[in-house]
């Protein structure tokens, strides 16, 4: 699937999505939905690869916030175009000090990318059908902002 990280197209994605407890791989870098992760935490942390979690607006983030350092990547799900909970989830994760890759999944829309970046996302995963390199322009359409953002929380009037 097309993937942008730090505003650049990336071809190989090291993360393998696992959605089913029956087929937990014994190794590899795995992306696991939060509920599944919590259920099989011991088995997952025992395997050799890295573990990333996927969260959405229905999840209680507390267990993630308690062990932020253990995840090199957190994926935030956007289940529908108009579901904006992921923007707040990103803010909360960055505010808590998460420095790893924060990835928007579930088909983020081109016209949301600028907002997503300012909320703290730095990676975006799209379906083949919708993605085009035109998406890269989305980040710079609006170049000045009143509010602070994840990388600089100061509102415009505090920035020199």
């Amino acid at each position, binding site marked *: 699937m097309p993937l942008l990280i730090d505003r650049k197209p990336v071809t190989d994605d090291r993360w393998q999505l696992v959605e089913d407890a029956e087929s937990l791989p014994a190794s590899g870098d795995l992306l696991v939905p939060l509920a599944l992760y919590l259920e099989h935490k011991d088995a997952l942390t025992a395997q050799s690869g890295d573990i990333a979690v996927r969260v959405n*607006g229905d999840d209680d983030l507390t267990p993630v916030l308690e062990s932020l350092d253990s995840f090199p990547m957190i994926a935030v799900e956007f289940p*529908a*175009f*108009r*579901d*904006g*909970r992921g*923007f*707040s*989830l990103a*803010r909360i994760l960055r*505010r808590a000090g998460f420095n790893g890759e924060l990835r928007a999944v579930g088909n983020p*829309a*081109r*016209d*949301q990318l*600028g*907002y*997503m970046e*300012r*909320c703290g996302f730095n990676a975006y995963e799209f379906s083949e059908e919708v993605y*085009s390199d035109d998406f890269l322009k989305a980040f710079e*359409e*609006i*170049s*000045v*902002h*009143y*509010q*602070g*953002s994840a990388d600089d*929380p*100061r*509102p*415009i*009037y*505090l920035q020199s």
Partner: protein
Amino acid sequence: MYIYNEVDQKIVDERVEQFRDQTRRFLAGELSDDEFLAVRLMNGLYIQRHAPMLRVAIPYGLISSPQLRKLGHIARKYDKGYGHFTTRTNIQFNWPKLEEVPDILAELAEVQMHAIQTSGNCIRNTTTDQFAGVTPDELEDPRPWCEIIRQWSTLHPEFAYLPRKFKIAVTGSPKDRAASQVHDIGLHLVKNDAGEVGFEVLVGGGLGRTPVIGKQIRPFIEKKDLLSYLEAILRVYNLKGRRDNKYKARIKILVEAMGIDAFRDEVEAEWANIRSSELVLTDAEIERVKGFFQPFEYDADAANDTSLQQKLDSDEAFRVWYERNTHNHKVPGYTAVVVSLKPQLEPAGDITDLQLEVVADLAEQYSFGQARSTHEQNLVLADVKNADLYAVWQKLAEHNMARPNINTLTDMIVCPGFDFCGLANAKTLNIAEQINRAFDDLDYLYDLGEIRLNMSGCINACGHHHIGAIGILGVDKKGEDWYQITIGGSDREDASLGKVLGKAVAADDVAETLKKLLETYVEVRTEEERFVDTVRRVGVAPFKEKVYAAAH
């Protein structure tokens, strides 16, 4: 008023180009209907019954003469020569072409205007008292705070895809002229026990299908905490508000479901995280913004005018207008003028290109180049010298904007209804006309006193029918328009929701029904009692009896 700097201008200019590209991609088939819907709504563009409708923001209702002229130009060039003021103090154009909207936005940007967040599930235009800064009953001018909120909420990255739309009103006076209690957030400038001025915060008010009066979430927050507190409320709402049913997605439903205490606890917990963050407003920033709303250089000699009294004594029509359509100004010798957009036989809130230019000229000549739009769909010239009132009145009268009916029955709030709106179930404009024809006698209207009559063409309540002393809601029954009437609502500091009178009445019977309501009022009222007070005292029953008894 606030004047754009380079940053403000750049944001608006870039937003125009962004929307131009979004429109291009949509027309080229690269952007889905659903995605374009969301991005066009966030730029005020609806697809209506006949054509697209573009809603242009008038932040907290404040507008300059050049901006009014630009709106006149847009009405003429891109529309059918008129616009319509809304209860959010914005103006909407009913006939633009989709492909011309980017050009309209570019023209608006030339005069520091835009259509950003005039629709969509985001933070909408913040509204306030139309007499802000000039009314004697005010604690503090709310407009700098509206501007601070405008900047914070404009293109806010986190709150552009909320569960539903979000409306904020700010008042600076104990008299509420902004319907603040039926807003998602109502902010009241108040003094605490220590004598400091800050904000009382209400949350969870709203109209629509489930009308609710806002509840106090905090009796007082300090001014510097305004944005962090707002952000805490919005974040809790964004995460917890319902998204499965758009009719249950407003914050009022969340607050009702959680209970105000539990909701407050969530907000306080979130606030603790951000209360000391960069969201804390600095004194310098507050002063910077306040600097744009300093009092004008009023003429100290204005109070010595004697010509006004002479004109009032000699010209009956002028006196009647003066008594109805003006508001006291805190500076002696000045008066605030309400420009009535409620002429007898035109839709409430409509204004022609020529009228826009006339108001622009009057503002420039007599009112420091500024006007305000009101949530009752009128305009205000807030700073007119008493000696100039006669000239202003004559010009307004010449252009059909001096009907002396402010705060009377015919100063109706009316949504465009089925004639224009894709959501409406019933027509409103024909009913407003019927009422205007039936209540043409000014002396009778004045005897009835202050009555807020609000009408909506559907349950979404754009015409604020729940908070009218008399509310009229158009409903569709088997293809026919019927009208449900409520009485006893108020949008003021004594805010209340109207109670249903009884079964809906047929379109032809609306004015006749109002007559019976008003006859009942006249029969049972005490001296000095407004219509709404009488309803509160005696209840709905006597009104109901009168209206429905005759029908059987």
